[in-house]
C-alpha cells in the first residue's frame, strides 16, 4: 500500500491518478482534506468520463503525477 497523500496540500492544476487508473486534474481544492473538485483527463474504465468534472474522495487518490 502506498503512503497516504495529503490532498489538502495539492494545488489547482495538479494531476493525480485514482484507484481506477483514471487521471484527473484538480480544478478547485476546498482544502477540507477529504474532497477535490477535478476534471477527468483519462478513464479507461469509463471513457465517457473524460472531460467531465466530479468530486474526488481523498482515499481514491493514489498517486501524484509529475
Amino acid at each position: 500500500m502506498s503512503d497516504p497523500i495529503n490532498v489538502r496540500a495539492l494545488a489547482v492544476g495538479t494531476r493525480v491518478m485514482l484507484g481506477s487508473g483514471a487521471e484527473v486534474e484538480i480544478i478547485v481544492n476546498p482544502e477540507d482534506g477529504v474532497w477535490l473538485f477535478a476534471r477527468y483527463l483519462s478513464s479507461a474504465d469509463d471513457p465517457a468520463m473524460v472531460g467531465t468534472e466530479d468530486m474526488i474522495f481523498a482515499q481514491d487518490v493514489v498517486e501524484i503525477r509529475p
Partner: protein
Amino acid sequence: MPMNATRGYHSGLVDLTSGQISREIFVNEDIYAQEQERVFARSWLFVGHESQIPNNGDFFVSRMGEESVILCRDRSGAVRVFLNSCRHRGMKVCRYDDGNAAVFTCPYHGWSYGTDGALVGVPFFREAYHSELDKTKWGLVPVAQLACYKGTVWANWDASAPPFLEHLGEFRRFLDLILDGWDGREGQAELIGGVQKWIIPCNWKFPAENFSGDTYHNISHRSVDLVGAGPSGRSRRDYNELNVARKLHVALPDRGHQTITYALPKDHQPQAAYQNSPEVAEYFRHCEEERRRRPGSNNRLMGAPGEIFPNVALLPRQPRTLAVWHPKSAHETEVWRFFFVDRDAPQQVKNFLRDYYIRYSGPAGMTEQDDMENWNYAHAASRGVIARRYPYTYEMGMGHAVENYEWDGLQIPGRVIDLTKAQASEEPMRNLYRRWAQFMEADSWDELMPWRHETAAQAAQ
C-alpha cells in the same frame, strides 16, 4: 384560547391574577424540556447579521435554542440557515465559528454538502451505495422560514408561524432604534468585533425578564455609576435627555415583546454626550441633528433595554447591542452578545465605542457582571425543595397600565406604564410570562395569533 387567562400554564404556575409565578418554571427540568419543543422550536429566533457573511461562501455558526445551525451565504448569494448536523450519523458538519467554505464536509465519513445545503459528495457512492442513494433527499435540514430585516437574520423551524414582521408587530420601531443609523437613515448598523459568548449558571428567563425592562435593579449597578464607566466619564450612560423625557414601560400583550423607552418632547435639542472625546461627541451631535430633520416618529424615541420574545434582548443606545439568551439546560444559559456601530462612522468613533461597549457589557463588562452575579445566585438559591415551594411576586404596578398612551402628540403602541414618577413596574415581566404560558399551552400557532382572529371578526362585521 385554551389558556385560562388568570391561571396560565396548566397548574397555575403563571398566575397573573395574583401576580405570582412559581419558581418551578425556572428550575424544573421537565418544564425546560417542554420549552425546547413548545417555545424554541416554533418561535422566531435571531441567528446573526448579514455583515457577518458579506461574500458568497461566508458562514457563521449560530444557534437556535440548544441546537447548532449554519448561517451562510451560498454560492449564488442567497442567505441560508441549516441545522449543523450531518444527515448520515448526525456529526456536527461545521466546527468552526465562522469562515468561508466551498463545501461543508463532515469529518466522520466524509459526506459533503454545498453552501446551498445540497448533499454533493458521498464517499464510494458508486461502489458502496451502487449509486442507489437518492442524494436529493439527504441535504442539510433547512429552517422552515427565514427573514432578513435591515441586516439581521431570523429563522423559525415552524412553517405555520406568522411571517417575521407580523410576529414583530408594532415592536418594529424599537428594533429599528438599533438597526437604523444614528442619523436616522435606514438599516445602517454593522457588527463590530467578534461575538462575545459565555455561559451563566442560571435559567435563560432570568436575563430575558431582566432585559424586558427591570428598572428596579438599578441599585445593583450603583458601583458602576460611582466608578463613572459612561462615555463622558460619569455614571453608566449619557442620559441628559432624562430631565425632559417621559420614561415608559411598553408591552405588546399579543406578541410578548416589551421594553423601556424614553419619549422626548417635540422640540428637544441634542444633549451633550461622549464628552471624553471631542471627535466622537461631534459625530453624535451631527447625527442627532440629522435625525431630527428626518420625518417619522422614531426621532422622538430614545432606546433602552427591551426583549423580543422569547430570547433576544435589545439595548439600542449605550451600548448598542443585541444579546441572545440561548438555553443550555434548565440551569445554564449561553449568552451571545452582538455589538453594533454605524457602518459609515469614522474609525475613531468605532474604536471609542468598542472600548465603551466592552467596559459595560459582556463577560468582562462591569454592568453585565453585576447582572450575572444576581441571576447566578438567584437561580441557585431557588433550586432547593424548600425554596421551590415559594413563588416570586410580580405584582408591582398591576392594574396601572394604559392603552392608547399619548404624550405631546406622540402615540405609543401596546400597554404603557409611565415610570417618570413610578420609577418601576413589573408590567413587562408579566407580559413576557403571559406570552410564555400561552406558548406552553397552545397546540398550534393558530391559537397564538389572536390578532388574526380579531381582524377576521372585524371583517365579518
